[in-house]
């Protein structure tokens, strides 16, 4: 699998990553190399093999439906880039 410039631009957009134009050829080369490595997976026929999502095959634990988290907004917003009146500020989304 060889990725072209347009593929990298599309993947970077899906991942919301700004990639400098001059770095695209290197990313294309590196990612193509990684996908080539990954394609070795196709050497094995896995028809009928149950996919394994978790090493211990454990069931998800459930907890009681009780409030366990307290409101720590002020504490958490101390490390935010930009807040005002308890709100996180981002550039205007709706005109």
């Amino acid at each position, binding site marked *: 699998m060889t990725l072209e410039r347009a593929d990298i631009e599309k993947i970077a957009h899906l*991942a919301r990553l700004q990639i400098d134009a001059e770095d695209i050829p290197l990313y294309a080369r590196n990612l193509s*190399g*990684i996908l080539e490595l*990954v394609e070795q997976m196709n050497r*094995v026929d896995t028809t009928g*093999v149950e996919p*394994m999502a978790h*090493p211990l095959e454990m069931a998800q634990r459930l907890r009681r439906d009780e409030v366990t988290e307290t409101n720590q907004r002020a504490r958490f917003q101390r490390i*935010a880039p930009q807040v005002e009146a308890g709100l996180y500020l*981002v550039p205007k989304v709706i005109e």
Partner: protein
Amino acid sequence: MHDKSISELAAGLRAREFSSVELTRHYLQRIARYDGRLNSYITVCEERALEQAAAADRALAAGDAVSLTGIPLAQKDIFCTDGVKTSCGSRMLDNFIAPYDAGVVERCDAAGMVMLGKTNMDEFAMGSSNETSWYGPVRNPWDTDAVPGGSSGGSAAAVAACLAPVATGTDTGGSIRQPAALCGITGIKPTYGRVSRWGMIAFASSLDQGGVMARSAEDAALLLKVIAGFDERDSTSADRDVPDYSAALNRDLAGLRIGLPREYFTDGLDTGVARVIEEAISEYRKMGAEVREISLPNTELAVPTYYVIAPAECSSNLSRFDGVRFGYRCSDPADLEDLYKRSRGEGFGAEVKRRIMVGTYALSAGYYDAYYLKAQQLRRLIRDDFARAFEEVDVIMGPTSPTVAFNLGEKSDDPVAMYLSDIYTIAVNLAGLPGISVPAGFVSGRPVGLQIIGNYFAEERLLNVAYRFQQATDWHRRIPEEFRG
């Protein structure tokens, strides 16, 4: 003081030979003197450490000391520490002061330990050489031209150079065992679920596991006892008792069945490393262990499988870094999309971006079955290989890494070559098994690690098998000359 084991240090504290403040100062002075050459710490917490040490001394005087009261340690900078910068080796979190403690950190505090600082690491634990850190590479104390391994390279170098008696690490594809091997120390990656992931910054959640980097199996047993155990805040935490790892260390190894996977001793393995491993195996034969060849037929597929699963999980986990609630934000964003893209583009380094993109691609519409589903199927086959092997043997042994430490810059332009250096460690994470690396000798002055893999929750056995080797050899006692004094 710095050549002593943790139990010797604990005994010294209890006998008032020295105080925790004196011990802590000693390590802080060593860090100040030597770490300029190694770059093993991102943050040194001098004031906080001395306060913790003074509190430990008060507890010791009052007879309130618990297991490791007053013993200093270093925390990998992936564990959140309340009020202390937690960078994960990334520009993205350079300004992140964690608002809470990780489960591992809480447990170390409860055991009375003193945190010297936070250690350097590959950015978001993605790397095998510690060269992807935003804070610059760490150097190997045995040869400062060489990498320390990664991603827990700072913890490995700090312990090897005696800039901390013991440290924590995390292991997603070998990140405890490989740097332990390359720096000549002991590193244990427990069974998936054994150590809480709460507050441990996530890379690949079905693989990530915290563990211990120490100078010996004896020391590792003490710290693992502290950090292991159930934590309801981690949804995949294992709810089972933690044994007293120290109690079983000296168990006799006569009749121990050791499996050597034939796939681990092939052309890719450096001949010098192979020789060291064979000598280590013959030590075990002398102790009465039975050695037999086994097969793990899907070994070669572990790296390709891992490089789908780990990037897929990373692309999902790292989507939280968006420049809105915490972490890096680009300047003057034009709109929300620009804010996301530039904050992430500028905040993440090249390796992290590569992995996010590989994961995004593998999970994107139309490719899911070919990549992610296929990888999960192979993951089962790899796990089944181990399950079959453990019907015949008690532990599996082989090299931790195919070569000794390589030079800085040697593989940094070739991601695939770097990935292949983890060929012996990655399958263990995919299967969720525990593994330990122990120092077994040197090739051209650089350390070699012996990897011992056990069945699920066999940490006690692994530490016992490692300890007996360390009773028969002295590789783990070596300290690099430059850092001895």
